[in-house]
C-alpha cells in the first residue's frame, strides 16, 4: 500500500523521537530530516535509518519536495522560525503538522478534537505543547460533565528531556498552552505552569490538572469521565497513567498523572516527548488516510503578497 511521504524539520529531541514513531507507521513514511547542525545526533540517526538529510535548514529541503513527493511535513523547530517554514512548504502544497508553540493553524489534541478536524482541509495543524497534550484531555473530560470555570495545569519535566529551543522560549510554551486549555479544553480561563527538574536519575514527566467547576462537583460522573479519557490517551501513549485523584476539595478537582515514554529516542522518563510526537503522528495519520482514500486533496497555496 502507498504511504504518504513526510519530511521532519528539526533534528532535536522531538524530531528524532518522532522519526522513530513514523518508521512504524502503516500510512506515513519519513523520507527527509532537516537540521541546521551537521554534527547533530538527530541527523546522524536519520541517515542511519536511510532518510535523506540536510543541515541547511528548510531551504535545503525545498528543491527536493516535488521530486520526492513530500506531502506532509512536521515542524519541530521553534515558534520563531515556524511561520517562515510553514509559508515555504504550504506554497508547495505540503501540509504542516506544527510541533512548535507557534499555533498558527488549528490546535489539535487527538482524543478531544481530531474527529472535528477531519472535515476540514487545514494546511497547518498545531500540536500545542507536550503539557497541553498531557493535560487538555483531562480538562475536556471534566468539562464534559460540568462547566470548568478555571483550569490550571502544572507540567514537571526532566531537565534532560528539554532541548535548547524550549528552554529559550518558555513564554511561548506558557501562552500557547494556556490558550489551548481554553480553546480546546473548554475551560473559561486557563493557566499553564512548567517546571524543569534536573534530578538524576531523571524524573518521569508529571502533570497535575486542577479544575474549578461551576457548582458542586458531580464526583461519580467526573471520575468516570476522567478514567474513560485516560483510557483513550493510553491507546496511543501506553505510559499515560493516573497516580492520584480525581481528588475533590470544594469545587476543585485535582488529577495527578505520570507520563512514561516508549524510550524511542530518549529514555522512558521523557514521556513529554512521546505524548507530543505520538499525538502528532496520530494527527498526521488521520490526514494521510484521507489523502490516500481521496477525500482530501492538498493544494499549493499562493504565497501571501
Amino acid at each position, binding site marked *: 500500500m502507498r504511504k504518504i511521504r513526510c519530511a521532519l524539520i528539526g533534528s532535536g529531541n522531538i524530531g528524532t523521537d518522532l522519526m522513530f514513531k513514523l518508521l512504524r507507521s502503516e500510512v506515513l513514511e519519513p523520507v527527509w530530516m532537516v537540521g541546521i547542525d551537521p554534527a547533530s545526533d538527530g541527523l546522524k540517526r536519520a541517515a542511519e535509518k536511510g532518510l535523506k538529510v540536510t543541515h541547511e535548514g528548510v531551504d535545503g529541503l525545498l528543491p527536493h519536495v516535488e521530486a520526492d513527493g513530500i506531502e506532509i511535513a512536521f515542524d519541530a523547530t521553534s515558534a520563531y522560525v515556524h511561520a517562515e517554514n510553514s509559508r515555504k512548504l504550504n506554497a508547495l502544497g505540503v501540509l504542516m503538522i506544527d510541533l512548535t508553540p507557534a499555533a498558527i493553524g488549528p490546535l489539535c489534541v487527538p482524543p478531544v478534537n481530531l474527529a472535528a478536524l477531519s472535515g476540514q482541509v487545514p494546511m497547518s495543524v498545531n500540536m500545542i505543547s507536550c503539557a497541553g497534550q498531557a493535560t487538555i484531555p483531562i480538562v475536556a473530560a471534566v468539562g464534559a460533565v460540568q462547566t470548568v470555570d478555571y483550569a490550571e495545569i502544572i507540567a514537571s519535566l526532566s531537565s534532560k528531556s528539554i532541548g535548547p529551543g524550549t528552554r529559550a*522560549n518558555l*513564554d511561548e510554551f506558557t501562552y500557547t498552552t494556556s490558550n489551548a486549555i481554553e480553546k480546546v479544553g473548554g475551560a473559561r480561563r486557563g493557566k499553564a505552569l512548567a*517546571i*524543569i*527538574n534536573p*534530578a538524576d536519575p531523571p524524573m518521569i514527566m*508529571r502533570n497535575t490538572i*486542577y479544575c474549578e467547576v461551576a457548582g458542586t462537583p458531580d464526583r461519580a460522573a467526573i471520575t468516570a469521565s476522567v478514567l474513560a479519557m485516560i483510557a483513550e490517551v493510553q491507546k496511543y501513549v501506553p505510559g499515560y497513567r493516573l497516580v492520584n485523584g480525581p481528588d475533590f476539595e470544594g469545587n476543585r478537582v485535582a488529577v*495527578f498523572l505520570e507520563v512514561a515514554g516508549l524510550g524511542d529516542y530518549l529514555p522512558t522518563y521523557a514521556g513529554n516527548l512521546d505524548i507530543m510526537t505520538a499525538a502528532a503522528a496520530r494527527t498526521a495519520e488521520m490526514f494521510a488516510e484521507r489523502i490516500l482514500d481521496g477525500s482530501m486533496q492538498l493544494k499549493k497555496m499562493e504565497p501571501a503578497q
Partner: protein
Amino acid sequence: MSRSPMEGLKVKLHDMSLRDGMHAKREQIPVAKMVEIAKGLDAAGVPFLQVTHGAGLGGNSIQHGRALASNAEYISAVAGVVKQATISVLLIPGLGTMKELQEAYDCGARSVHVATHCTEADTSPQHIAFARKLGMDTSGFLMMSHLNTPEGLVEQARLMESYGANTVYVTDSAGAMLTHEVTEVFTRLRDALRPETEIGFHGHHNLGLGIANSIAAIGAGASRIDASLAGLGAGAGNAPIEVLAAVCDRMGIVTGSDTFALMDLAEDVVVPMMDHVVRADREALTLGFAGVYSTFLLPAKRAGARFGIPARDILVELGRKKMIGGQEDMIQDTAMTMARERGLPVDVA
C-alpha cells in the same frame, strides 16, 4: 577586640518582607499593610524592596495560592509611596512571563530577580534580556543553590551574566547551605565574573545560619543581600534584616540603613501581623536539614493534616525525590501516595 576585617565594605540590602514574606502570610497581606511597611523601609533607607505574590509575577494560582490583591495592585500602591527605594519583583520563567514583567514595569517596578533552578539558567535569557531592554536593574537568581557544585554555580552565573544580568544571586531556597560553602562559592564567583557584575546572597534561616551565611557572602565579595523584617519569609524565614543591619553596623559594613528604625518596624508592625512565629520549628528545620524548598512548609503542614501524615515525613520524602521550587502540586500527590502506602484513606475532605 581586633578590628573587623570587613570594615568599610558596602552592601545593598534588598528587603523581602513583601514578597518572600507573602509565603509566611499565605499570600494574605493587605495592600494597606504593604504600603505601611514599604513606607517604613523606605524611610529607614533600605535601597530595594521586593513586592509581589510570594511566587512572583504570575504567582496567583491554585498551585501557589491566590493573594488578596493582584501584583499590579500591590506594586502600584507601594511604588506610589516610596521616596528613595527601588521596587523590585520576582519572575520565575515557566510561571511569570514577559507580559507580566512589562505590566510590573508599568506599575513602577524598576528591578527584577529573574529566578531559575540552580542548574537551569538557560531558561532565563528571554526574560533577562527583556528586563535590561526595559532598563531594569536585573539579577539572575539561582534557586536551591545547595543542589549544585561551586563549579556548576559559576557556570550558571556566567550564563546569566552573558544574558545581561548585572547581578547574580546565590539563592539558598532550602536554607541548607553551610557557611564554608557560601564562602567558597562567593570566592569563586567573584573571581569568575566581570568586576562590574555584582553578586548577591539570598538566605533562609532554616538551620539558623541566615545571618552567618550573609556575612560570609559579604566577606567573599557579595554586595547585595536579601533579608526581611523579623525574617518574615518562607520556612524559618529569611535573614532578619534588623539583625543583619545591626551586625553590619558592629562590623563596620556600610548598609546606609537605620538599624533602630528597622528594629522598630520589625517589632511594632511585622511581628504582630505574623500568623505563626517564623522560626526554625521542627518542620522548618527539616527543610534545611533535608534540603527542601522553604515554601513547601505550609502546604506540607496542610496536606499532612488532611491525610494524616506527619509533615516532616512528607518533607523528607519530597527531599528524597529531589522536588524543586514550583512543584507544590507534588506535596499533595506525595501525601496521598504515602497515605495509601500506610493504609490510610485518601478520600478525605
